[in-house]
């Protein structure tokens, strides 16, 4: 027994001495972006898609380079982001899709006022119904929703899960969805199936193209996948006043196309006092869809790190970001 305990003690002693030794003169931390530092570090959230990383790393390059404030990036889930903004652990997030966060807007921005709206980012996004291009090539009538009224055509999309009906595939349940309502209210012979995650949905696209087996799904642009495969949006009925009213009342009677998403930025309410210069710069910051996808292609296509991609663009386009600092 004593020998065991001694061994234990030895191991602990080894750990302690080594750690003390390691901790002396630790030089690995304490370095940051560069330039003269002013104020505590700013934390920006990156949600798991390329556009979100593009905005955050561009902002990081500008803030560190021109304002001399260190920026930390945190990779985090969208919902957790709001709680981080709420308690100030996160200072800002630069790409919120309004359609998915109406409840958050109400709770934190208009309600608690712990989070503030920093204005539009610039790009407009569009959620909708999409099919791979080969489907439209073979059946041009499927370019609009009316094509799906034909049970024979809808059946092209049938799977073991959907049986006699065509399958409508939805990805991650955290995204906003009216598809079930649209299908029911228009009366289309489709069955709504939740794939459960974006990864599963993307894989379903690959599978569909590999087999030339039609796939109808909820998808959105901008998305990095649309640079690799051709996806065509299916036209849904234009938005009517009734549909807008139904959205506001969430009465389940929605039967139109998805509204356009104007992406916006949000900051923790404390940021204005924590660092007014950063707050001002982030409020002014805007990117066009083209700029965002250009930087995105450095990351997805050329396999650059988001940091390098942002720096490359910032170096080449000073006139764009200098306007944010004016």
């Amino acid at each position: 027994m004593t020998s065991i305990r001694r061994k234990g003690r030895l191991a602990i002693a080894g750990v302690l001495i080594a750690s003390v030794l390691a901790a002396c003169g630790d030089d690995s931390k304490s370095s940051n972006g560069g330039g003269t530092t002013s104020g505590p570090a700013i934390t920006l959230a990156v949600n798991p898609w390329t556009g979100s990383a593009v905005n955050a790393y561009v902002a990081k390059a500008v803030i560190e380079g021109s304002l001399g404030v260190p920026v930390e990036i945190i990779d985090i889930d969208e919902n957790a982001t709001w709680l981080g903004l709420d308690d100030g652990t996160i200072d800002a997030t630069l790409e919120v899709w309004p359609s998915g966060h109406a409840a958050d807007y109400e709770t934190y921005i208009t309600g608690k006022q712990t989070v503030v709206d920093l204005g539009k980012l610039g790009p407009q996004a569009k959620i909708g119904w999409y099919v791979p291009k080969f489907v439209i090539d073979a059946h041009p009538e499927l370019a609009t929703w009316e094509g799906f009224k034909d049970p024979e055509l809808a059946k092209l999309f049938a799977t073991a899960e959907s049986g006699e009906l065509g399958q409508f595939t939805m990805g991650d349940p955290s995204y906003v969805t009216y598809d079930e309502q649209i299908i029911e209210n228009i009366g289309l012979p489709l069955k709504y199936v939740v794939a459960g995650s974006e990864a599963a949905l993307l894989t379903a696209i690959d599978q569909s193209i590999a087999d030339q087996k039609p796939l109808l799904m909820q998808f959105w642009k901008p998305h990095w996948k649309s640079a690799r495969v051709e996806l065509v949006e299916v036209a849904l009925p234009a938005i009517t006043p009734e549909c807008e009213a139904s959205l506001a009342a969430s009465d389940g009677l929605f039967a139109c196309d998805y509204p356009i998403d104007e992406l916006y930025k949000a900051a923790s309410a404390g940021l204005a006092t924590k660092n007014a210069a950063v707050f001002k710069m982030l409020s002014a910051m805007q990117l066009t869809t083209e700029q965002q996808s250009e930087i995105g292609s450095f990351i997805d296509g050329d396999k650059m790190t988001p940091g390098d991609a942002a720096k490359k663009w910032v170096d080449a386009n000073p006139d764009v970001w200098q306007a944010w600092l004016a």
Partner: protein
Amino acid sequence: MAASVETLPAMESDEAVRARQQQRTVGLAIFAALALGALVAAHDVPDWMDSGIQKWTQDRYQWSVLNRQSSKVFTWVFNPIADVLTWAVENTESILLALRWPGVIALVGVIGWRTGGMRAAIAGAVALFGVGVIANWDLAMRTLAIMIVAVLIALLIGVPLGILTSRSDRIERLVRVLLDTAQVMPIFVYFSPATILFGIKFPPAVVVTVIYALPPAVRLTNLGLRQVPIVVNEVGQSFGATSLQQLLKVQLPMARRTILLGLNQVIMMAFAVVVLASLLGTGDLGQDVLSGLQKQEVGKAFAAGLGIVLMAVALDRISTGEKSTRHSRLATQLPTVSSRTAAMVAVGIPVLAVVVARLAGASLFPTSLQFNIATVIDDAVQWVQENLRKGVPIIGGTQAISDFITLYLLDPLRDFLLWLPWLLVIVLMALAGWLSKGWRLSVTIALCLGLIATMGYDNKTLLWDHAMDTLSQVLVAIVISIAIALPLGMWAGRSDRVERALRPFLDAAQVLPQFVYLIPVVFLFSVGRAAGVVACVIYAVPPCIRLTSLGMREVPFAPREAAISFGATGGQEMRNVQLPLARKAILLGINQTMMMVLATVIIAALIGAGGLGLLAYRATAKPQIDFGLGTAGGLSIVLLAIMLDRLTQAWGTRSDTHRGT
């Protein structure tokens, strides 16, 4: 011959037999009456059964969101805890980074050497070195830091709780129900409350990891202490030891082995959770797994996943804490290393490693030593995806299997369960419980299902209907898992070579984050319930194989030899002697399989399985709207799990009483 083992003539008087038959008739009559009643009653769960649990939970959630800055519960309790956890993880991480990679590897080697001898030292060090080779070392150290803090907290809470439960059966029962519930509850249900209570990043990640790592710590401490022979306790008492002295000097040292096994299990459970925790912003190795998936970079996700596996292997080897018997026997014959030399080695090597590493400026793991397995994996996945889906002789390929599972197994079973009136489902399951064990179990089952009926609606669908959907998937997955695992387990139980060949696959399948094979599974089996079943099977098969093999191996040799000397062939001996004697272990394997399947229901939801798993996921996906719904879905999974667990456990004990001689 073996048949006589099964049906030993009952040693009961005629009267007892008659009384039992009478009881049986009465019981059956009661169930028949109940079944009739169920047929007459409404087919669907009536509205008044809705307990309103969803709204209640959602309201609590909303209250916490609104009051997390002002309420004293937060400012006095949760926020300080969160601060301490952040402090602990950050400091552990900076120590690990400051030690530099040679220092960390040397430390693991030395700890392994002290706890498990040279073999453990080498295995631990090599595995950890492998982490640096295939994954990002700095991210791995952050994962390790979270693990270390979570495991220490799990032990700090778990061991005292284990001691407490070993003293009182009542406390044990209560704690066990709580821990079982906490562990079966899908992880996605915890994320939103954990972030509201503890903020983002490290604190909620540590808390969620502790929830899953705690049960084995409690369970095995309790088991270890209960296994200490009474005689030993009495000797201690007769020497006048106080109960504290006895605990510290007698019981805990004697239970050390089992408690260490608990530590090992704690570490394994914690690693299983760590990937998902990176959703909360920890930015560790799990982040690489998740972002790899998001971009469909299976190889990258796999490499990070393998890094996590290797880290688990390293900690497993150095925490098992027992030198192999061969080693210790050797050690007694060889001249033992003097304790001073041991001390010098134990302290010297890590110190030397750290000094050298820092002088040489080795702050990053050298890129020249890194090996990019991502491309290899990507090629392999590509090949599998292109060649296994279609045109495979006889079975036709994975797509055909997927369609078969959906159309001929899942659909009929689900439709049948939904076709039955809900009360009849309860009566039939309760009857199964009564036949397996008796009234108590019967009531437990009825209670579990009855509570599911009170969970309300998801939009217009009853949660009951989702539960029947999930139940059908779980049953199909269990049957397929057992059909695969039992033959393999039996084979492994009779052949050392097979056992050795299977072991690395079993280890990897159990520790590898399930996320890394989501994409290939979807590509091969298409989005839907069948893909979900396959994911469950992949996860559930290893423990079943392992326990079956173990059960076969633990059968004493004497009866088997006797059978052979009576002229039984190998096959006869296996069927009639070894299998019946291994029955209990095999039934335990089936029970474990089921729990694994239920734990994977939530992962299956990410590839299209729907059902309760998807509801539980929505607690994380849209907490502002669906937290109450998600919690109700998670609770329903827990209730299904408790029901199936008690039922299969009853089969295990019943086989005992039947054989009791």
